[in-house]
């Protein structure tokens, strides 16, 4: 569901991580991601992902995989 994986092996050679900072962490509107000591992104608040795919688009190395599937509230339907 929602943001699935970040393949951090792809972050090793990323010049952005060591320079201006990981664009994936900054792109998230709901602030789901955080950086570790090396500036690599990890999923800190998974429950707040709304599956908008901005993080996936913003990673030039395709390290992020997002699923479209999201948990919708059952009480809102019949």
């Amino acid at each position, binding site marked *: 569901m929602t943001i699935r994986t970040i393949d951090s092996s792809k972050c090793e050679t990323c010049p952005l991580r060591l320079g201006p900072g990981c664009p994936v962490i900054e792109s998230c509107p709901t602030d789901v991601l955080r950086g570790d000591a090396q500036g690599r992104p990890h999923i800190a608040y998974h429950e707040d992902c709304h599956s908008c795919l901005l993080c996936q688009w913003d990673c030039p190395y395709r390290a992020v995989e997002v699923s479209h599937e999201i948990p919708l509230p059952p009480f809102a339907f*019949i």
Partner: protein
Amino acid sequence: MTQNYVVKETDVLVVGGGLAGLWAAIRAKDMAPRVTLAEKGKVSRSGASVFCHSTRAPLPENQFDVWLKETVERSGYLADQKLAEIIILENNKRIRDMERWGVIFDRDEKGSLRAECVRGEKTVRSISFQGKQMMETMRNVALGKGVEFAERVMIIDLLTSDGQHPTKGHIVGAVGLHTRTGDVIIFKCGAVIISSGGTSAKVHCHYADNITGDGLAMAFRAGADMLNMEFAANPSFGNWERKFNTGGQQQFLMNGARIINRHGERFLTKYPAWARSEEPEFEGNVEFGDLCRAMAIELLEGRGPVYFDLRSWSQENIRKMRRVLPVTMAAFDAAGIDVSKQPIECTPMMVNYGMSTSAGIRVDVNFQSTVPGLFATGVCAMIGAGQKPQAVCNVTGYVSGEKSAALAGSNKMPSQEQVSKIAQRVLAPLQRGKGPLADEVYDRLNRIVMPYEISLFKEETRLRRALGTLRNIVAEQLPVVRARNPHELVKANEVRSYAQMLLLMLSGALERKESRFGHYREDYPYSDDINWLKWTVASSDENGEIKLETEPVVLPLYRPEEPSRIPARIQFTFGKGR
């Protein structure tokens, strides 16, 4: 007290880094030395416009009257006609500015802007762009002009010259919260422009979980009049296969998608009013409220699920969808759905998210609210339905940016007492060891307002009951919400805005005794142009409670020829059919 907090001084503070906020900041910076754009996320990756692809085309010569008339008609005559006029007239210049700055609009082989009718448009036209490209371009323009960005800063409440909410004075600043450090930041300024969009229920729909109604709620608390809040929430049906939620419904409909029930029936044609319409075989012009109600009725009466059916489509049409709806089509692919071979289940749902311009803060021709120094732009301002939100962002942002700059240099010291009171309330959830988390309160609120009998089919007794439950939650649970870190603290403050918005939406819905757009009252199942060409006006009393009044709409240019009661096309009494 302020010495405990970071204090930032600026001339104009813009709240929200979507398209309207960027326009406001860019224009304000042309006129005022210091402009700060505060954004809860990242400017250009926040707001709704980054996910949008359509705006109003430039007005062709000699079309002004025709466009304005159509726009006012589509607002159900509830538009502020003066504001509608400004939006139509000024948008040309803004589109030109954007192109000059590098925003790419779709053009045909001859190089002309590709202007097309979409979603029920008859004479007015829309043009396409790529939301992300547009927002990045606008971000760069703002930075190039020297707008100061305060990113990951949530603005929570406004500071007023008399230290009061609601104020009898004017705006002197705002209280913000850094979303990662949890630091309180005090902004001192001459004007605040609210550009933070609508309200979402935070249920992972429409990519809007970050758009939480904070700007609208803070404006209400500070004393701004709010108009037609019953129209602030809209029903949607972008829930495919009950698994994911993407845009594109309208594209499918405009290209001839059929909507069918479990038995394969095109159920809209069952409704006499619909069957008599100009194009009964075409679902592209059905108003979303009607469509969602008709779908819900099929589900309630046991003929669900309801499907979008593209099986009769040509491969060329499907290729077109792949081009214009890449995200939605990729989602279908990932779920193993072949749209040319199987119908796609589609579920209506009230998302309590209004991207519409039919509700919001009352503004004058400068887009200034009833509180001096407080401006509202984009979908935060009530302009009237029938508008393209992105065009509204362009013009309201630009004009409010320009007008607010006149207040530069009028900074007044915020009252220490007000700063301290607000800051303590903002931070209080961190000090609580017990109490519900914001997510739990969101869930409780949504369980009250989202079920169909409150959201899609409204009725007085049920609305009163829902409002009562809502008020209990506001009184008992909001004051004890806890947070364990700054991230949860943001949500604890957001849920307060959401509860305020729900109170406004439901109070307005109870007051408006007619049906129009997404607001359907089964006890008043008609649009009542005789008695209800009125705005509902909500304002805050000294205790923060909602005062509601109604006011006839001023109709200077266009009015219905023979005002009458027009029965709702899709009528239903909840519970009767089950």
